[in-house]
C-alpha cells in the first residue's frame, strides 16, 4: 500500500543525518580557516576579528544584542504579515479583474524596483521615529512580491480541473477556495520566502536610517566606535534571525502543501 512515501517510515535520525552533516562540516571548516588565517597573518581586529573575538563580543552582552535582534525580528515579521496579507488581497483582485490588473500592474512593477534605501527615509518622515515606521517599510517591501505571486498563482490553475469543477456545479466560492487558492499556494510560498529576506533587510535598513533600537542601530553605533567584533556579532545574529524566520516559513510550507512536487524527499 503506497499510501505514504516510503521515506516517512524511516526513523528521524536516519532521515535527517544525511541532510545535516554537510553544512556542519562546511561550518567547522570555514570557522577553522577563519581563525587560522587571523592568527597566522596577524590580521588587525578592525579588519577581521577572529571567531573567538566575535564570540566574546557576543557573550559580553548577550541579552542586549538578542533584545535588539528581537526588536528587528518583530518589525520584520509584523511588516511581513501585514504586507503579505495586503499584497495577497490586491493580487486576488488583479486575478479576478483584468481591467484592474492592466491599470495597476505597470505601477506595481515599478514600485517593486524602488530601492529600500530610497524609500525608507521617506516612510520614516511619514510615520515618525518609532516602530511604526520600520514596520511600514517592511510592509511596503512585502506587498509587491505577494501581489505578483498571488495573481500569477490564482491564474495558474489547470483548465481541465476547472472543467471538472464546472461539471460538478461548483459555486464561485468553491472554485476559489477548493481550486484556485490551493493551486496558488506554491506561488504564495515563493512570494513569502522572498518577503522573509526583504523584510529582515528592510527592517535593518530602516533602523540604519533612524533608530535607537534594533540590529540596524547596533551595526550603526558599533561602526562609529569601530567596535568591530560586536559589529560582526550583530551581523551574524541578523543572519541567524533571517534563517530562523525562513525555516519557520519553510516548515509552514511543508505542512500547507505536502502534496507539491517541491516537497519531495531529497534524493
Amino acid at each position, binding site marked *: *500500500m*503506497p*499510501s*505514504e*512515501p516510503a521515506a516517512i517510515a524511516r526513523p528521524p535520525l536516519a532521515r535527517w543525518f544525511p541532510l545535516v552533516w554537510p553544512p556542519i562540516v562546511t561550518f567547522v571548516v570555514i570557522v577553522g580557516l577563519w581563525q587560522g588565517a587571523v592568527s597566522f597573518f596577524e590580521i588587525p581586529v578592525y579588519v577581521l576579528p577572529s571567531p573567538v573575538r566575535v564570540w566574546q563580543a557576543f557573550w559580553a552582552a548577550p541579552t542586549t544584542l538578542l533584545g535588539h535582534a528581537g526588536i528587528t525580528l518583530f518589525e520584520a515579521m509584523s511588516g511581513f504579515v501585514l504586507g503579505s496579507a495586503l499584497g495577497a488581497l490586491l493580487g486576488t483582485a488583479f486575478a479576478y479583474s483584468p481591467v484592474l490588473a492592466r491599470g495597476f500592474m505597470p505601477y506595481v512593477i515599478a514600485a517593486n524596483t524602488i530601492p529600500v534605501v530610497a524609500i525608507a527615509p521617506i516612510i520614516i518622515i511619514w510615520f515618525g521615529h518609532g516602530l511604526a515606521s520600520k514596520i511600514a517599510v517592511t510592509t511596503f517591501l512585502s506587498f509587491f512580491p505577494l501581489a505578483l505571486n498571488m495573481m500569477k498563482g490564482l491564474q495558474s490553475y*489547470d483548465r*481541465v*480541473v476547472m*472543467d*471538472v*469543477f*464546472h*461539471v*460538478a*456545479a*461548483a*459555486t464561485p466560492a*468553491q472554485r476559489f477556495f*477548493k*481550486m484556485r487558492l*490551493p*493551486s496558488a*499556494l506554491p506561488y504564495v510560498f515563493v512570494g513569502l520566502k522572498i518577503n522573509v529576506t526583504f523584510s529582515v533587510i528592510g527592517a535593518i535598513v530602516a533602523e540604519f536610517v533612524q533608530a535607537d533600537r534594533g540590529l540596524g542601530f547596533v551595526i550603526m553605533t558599533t561602526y562609529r566606535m569601530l567596535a568591530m567584533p560586536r559589529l560582526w556579532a550583530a551581523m551574524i545574529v541578523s543572519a541567524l534571525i533571517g534563517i530562523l524566520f525562513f525555516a519557520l516559513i519553510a516548515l509552514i510550507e511543508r505542512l500547507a*502543501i505536502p*502534496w*507539491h*512536487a517541491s516537497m519531495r524527499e531529497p534524493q
Partner: protein
Amino acid sequence: MAEPRPAPASPADAPVVDVRDVSLVYAGDRGSAGLRALDHVRLSVAKGSFVSLIGPSGCGKSTLLRIVADLLAPTAGTVTVGGVAPKAARLARQIGFVFQDPALPEWRRILDNVVLPLELRGVDRAAREARGRELMRLVGLEGFERAWPRQLSGGMRQRAAIARALSTEPRVLLMDEPFGALDQITRDRLNMELAAIHEETGVTVLFVTHSIREAVLLSDKVVVMTPRPGRITRVIDVALARPRKLATRDDDAFQDLVREGNRELERGYADAL
C-alpha cells in the same frame, strides 16, 4: 390540431441524451469567418446504452461532448439530458465527465478526489467517504485512499477520475478519449473494467475514441463522424453478445464491424480532402 398525436414516449424509453440539429461555430479572429465545428448533428443515446463517437481529429467529438455537458453552448439546435437542458442537468449533478487528462487536483488525496463532487454538493464527510470507498472498490483502487495523485500510475489516476465521475450517480457518463494516453495493455484492462462498470451500474455512456476497435468492443452503437464541417455520417449498430471479453476481438462478427467502421472513416477522409 384535430389529428390525434402519438402519445409522448414514456420516460423509461426516452433518450437520456438527445441532440437535435446542433451546429456550433467557433468565432474566428477579427472578421474571419469562424470555424463550423458541428453541422446539424443529430444523435440520441438510449438509457443504459453505450455509444461511441469516432472520427479523425478535429471532427468535433470533444465539442459535442462539451455541449452535452454545458461546457459550451450550441450556435443552433437543442440538447436535452434526461429530458432537461444541459445546464439544468449539470446543476442537478446528472452529468459525469471523464477527460483524457485525469485532472486530479494534486493537493487532494485519491479518496478526496473521488468524492469531490459530493463534497461540492454538501454531502457530509462520513456519507461521502463511505460512498467514496465503495467507488474505489468498483474501479479497483482499494488501498490507495490516502495516496497522492502523483504517487499513482496513469491508469490508476484515470480509474480515480472514472470513480469521481460516477460519484453523484449521474444519468450519463461522458468520456473524451479517456484511455488515449495509456499504453495498450493498460488500455485493454481498463476497457474490460469499463465494460464491467457499465454492466454493473447500468449508467448510460457516451464515449469518444480514436480507435475503432475500442469503439466496437465496448459499444452498442458506434457513431462515425467526419470533419470540416463536423457531421455524423453513419451509425453502426453493434449487436455482439454481452458481456464482452477481450477475446471478442477474435470473432468474425467483431472484425466485420471494425472493417465496416474503417471503410466509413476512410470515406470520410476522402470526402473531406
